[in-house]
Every structure is written in structure tokens, then in C-alpha cells.
């Protein structure tokens, strides 16, 4: 008998260890054992509690679980948790309102290209300034490589360069690795200037948040003029979106007939928590700059 109990003990201990490490849903059987134990001990424990109350009565006004520090601690923890949830929910409501505003702005914009706005949260940011950024939407949400990201409906921020199922990598317009961008410059007080008459410029990101390009010195360009994208390598939905404003016009010493303009986007990805991805609908998809899948 003793021999067999010696042999059983290691198995029992291993089983106990397995139960100890098992998740809560696998420990349902313990409820039955506990219930049986409570059933047996219950009447005697009640008597014991009465004896305990008699030996050491609870202070007046503090009877019941309020007198139990563990219970009070539990309540305090619950209160703290609810406060945390309240703050988190408030932040969520604010974020949703912000997203809604962004989506409404896109919907109200005059767009000839049917697009589906998709609000994406900015996730992991690159450690370098104006580096790539991970957005919280991926191919499962219809995002595709080349999809453009906007802020306040018409401000172009950049485009998607990589897509996974649940997220995508976004390259800001001002990223140094971004390709050259063709754009037109519209005088700030004559925004209705036909594109055929507007000065054209090829902008190159410099990595400091600005884009630079050379323009004909004869073109009248001033600081504050609006620069809009007009580039065949970008999707139709991006055409005409604002790249930024002319920050300065500098004369180019090596080429006396040309000026260098510095364009600064109004919004940088580092300033925003959300962007709106403009996803072109299937029937309007064209190949330049990527197409929906």
C-alpha cells in the first residue's frame, strides 16, 4: 500500500502542476471540488464565524465586507479600472469625432474620381524625420500600393508603398526617398488660373520637410503661392491636391535664367494622428501610381 502511494505521489504532483499552469477555463472541475468542500465545511464555518464574531466583534459601523481590507482594495482597484476605462473611452470618442470630420471633408469635396475615403490611424513612426510611417489599415480594408493619403481632404501627405493584410507603410511626400513630383504653381490670389497657364515645376524632396524645384525666372512666382500636384505617375484621385505653399524663391547662381523655389507642405505626417486614404473605386481605377486590387 505504502509502495503504491509512493509511486502515485509523483504523478499527483505533476498533475497538480499541470492544473496550476492551466488556463482558468480548464479549471472548471475545481469548482466542483471546492463546492463539495464548502458544503462539508459550511455549517461548521458558520458556527466558527459566529464564534469569531463573539470573540472579536467588528467595530461599530464597519460591519460586513467594508471591514475587509482585501475587499476595500478590490473596490479601489475596480474604481481605478473604471476611471481608466472612462478616460480611454473619452479619448476614443474624440478620436472618432476627428475621424468623422476627416471623412466628411472628403465626401463633401468636389471629386470627379469616385473614391472611398478610409481613415487610418498613424501607427509606428520611423525614427528619422519625415520617414515612413505605419498606418493601421491594410489590404483587408482595401488598401493598395500607391493609394494616396490626404489630410483635410485636399492636402496631399504621401502615398502607400507597402501593404500587408492589416497595416500599410506610408511614405510622406517630403521623404527624401520619395520620387520627383510634377506640380503646378497657382498664384495665391488667382486660384482659378487654368492649369495650362500655370507654371510647372518638378519638385524634389530634400529630407528637411521641404521640396525644391527649379522654375523659369520669367514665371511670376511669389512666396505663398499654392503648389498642386499634376503628375501622371500619381493616381487620378491625387491630381490637383495641394502639395504645399511656396515658402521662398531663390535665384540660382549656376543657372541665371532659373529660380529655385522651396515648397513646404502645410501638414506633415508627424503633425497628425490620422490620415484619410483615398481609395479609388474599382471602375475608375487606372494604372498610374498603383491600382486597387
Amino acid at each position, binding site marked *: 500500500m505504502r509502495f503504491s502511494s509512493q509511486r502515485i505521489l509523483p504523478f499527483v504532483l505533476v498533475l*497538480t502542476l499541470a492544473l496550476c499552469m492551466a488556463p482558468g477555463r480548464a479549471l472548471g472541475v475545481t469548482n466542483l471540488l471546492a463546492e463539495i468542500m464548502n458544503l462539508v465545511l459550511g455549517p461548521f464555518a458558520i458556527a*466558527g464565524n459566529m464564534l469569531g464574531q463573539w470573540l472579536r466583534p467588528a467595530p461599530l459601523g464597519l460591519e460586513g465586507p467594508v471591514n475587509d*481590507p482585501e475587499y476595500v482594495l478590490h473596490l479601489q482597484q475596480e474604481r481605478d479600472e473604471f476611471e481608466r476605462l472612462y478616460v480611454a473611452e473619452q479619448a476614443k470618442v474624440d478620436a472618432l469625432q476627428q475621424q468623422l470630420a476627416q471623412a466628411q471633408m472628403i465626401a463633401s469635396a468636389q471629386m470627379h474620381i469616385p473614391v472611398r475615403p478610409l481613415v487610418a490611424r498613424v501607427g509606428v513612426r520611423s525614427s528619422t524625420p519625415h520617414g515612413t510611417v505605419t498606418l493601421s489599415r491594410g489590404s483587408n480594408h482595401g488598401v493598395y500600393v500607391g493609394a494616396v493619403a490626404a489630410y483635410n481632404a485636399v492636402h496631399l501627405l504621401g502615398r502607400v508603398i507597402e501593404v500587408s493584410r492589416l497595416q500599410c507603410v506610408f511614405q510622406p511626400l517630403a521623404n527624401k526617398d520619395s520620387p520627383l513630383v510634377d506640380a503646378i504653381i497657382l498664384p495665391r490670389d488667382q486660384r482659378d488660373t487654368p492649369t495650362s497657364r500655370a507654371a510647372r515645376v518638378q519638385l524634389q524632396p530634400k529630407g528637411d520637410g521641404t521640396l525644391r524645384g527649379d522654375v523659369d525666372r520669367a514665371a511670376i512666382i511669389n512666396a505663398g503661392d499654392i503648389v498642386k500636384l499634376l503628375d501622371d505617375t500619381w493616381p487620378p484621385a491625387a491630381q490637383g491636391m495641394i502639395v504645399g505653399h511656396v515658402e521662398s524663391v531663390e535665384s540660382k547662381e549656376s543657372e541665371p535664367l532659373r529660380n529655385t523655389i522651396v515648397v513646404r507642405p502645410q501638414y506633415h505626417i508627424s503633425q497628425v494622428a490620422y490620415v484619410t486614404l483615398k481609395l479609388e473605386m474599382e471602375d475608375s481605377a487606372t494604372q498610374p501610381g498603383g491600382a486597387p486590387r
Partner: protein
Amino acid sequence: MRWSVFAIVSFIVIVLQLSVREVLTLHSIGAISPDLVACLATFIALFAPRTTVLWACWLLGLAMDLAPAARSMNWHLVGPNALGYVFGGYLVLHMRAMVFRRRMLTTALLTFLFLLAVAVLATFLLTLRHWYLPDTPLHGSPLGEFWLRLKIALYSGVAALPFGWLLQLTVAFWGFTGGASRRGW
């Protein structure tokens, strides 16, 4: 060891542990109560044969695991006490040859060491489980859990002086073999 005596005494001590211990609770230092069941386990570990000790400790630890938890959960975590008591019993088994078993101070000291061993193993198991299952009932942090158990161990060691003495009075009924030296401090 007579298992019938073990069953009766264990039943009484567990009832005391789960109900009357409130009388001995020290609210000013974290509402700690002495672990009378550990005193009993230590007492058994001092006199009973090796396998009997380990089984008895496992049963007593299991009972403690199945006792109502401090936190509301729809399951009972079996193991920290069951395994911890076995570990503690094993420790006492190794130490009992070096001590005067029927001294009150021996019971007190070994109860403290028994619960210290339980604290180490139980905290380790709870921490390990908490690492991948956050619903594990850990007292704040691993350090918090260990600190709480350490305080209980100290208090139980003190409580084991009178309680151990009471148990020593019953030693004749248990049917232990050996350990027949005289009682004393």
C-alpha cells in the same frame, strides 16, 4: 500515522482557518492571519513517515487552494499551496533530524521555514502563470505576493508557539512512531 486522526484534526483546523482566524487577523499590517493549517502540516512533518508527510501536506495544501479565494473568480487555482505545502513538508523532513521535535520553538521556527518555502514556490508558480495568463490571482506583483506571504510566515511562526503546543499535547493520538522525547520550550 492514523489517518482518521488526521482527518478529524485537519477538518477542525481548516474550519478554524476559514472562519475563526479573523479573530487573529492583524489589520494594521496588511490584514494578515496566521496559517494554522501550515502549523498542522509542520507538526505532521516533524513526526510522520516521509510518504505520509508528503501526502498529508498535499491534501492540506489542496484544501487551502480550494478555499474561497480573496478575489471573485469562477474557478480555483489548484497548485500554489498544494505544491508549496509539499515543498515545505519536504524541507521539514530534511531538517527534523537536526532539531528537538517536541520543543515549541522548534514547531514555531519550522512553521516559519515551512511557510517560507511555500512562499517561494507559490510566488514562483503564480508569477510564471501570471506571465502568460494575466487572470492569475497575484497580490499586485511577485514581490508583493512574496512580501505578503513572508509576513504570514512570520506571524504563523509566532502563532505556532501556542498552537504547536496544543498539537504537541495530542501527539499520543496520532500514532506516530519515534519522536518520543519530552515536551518543552
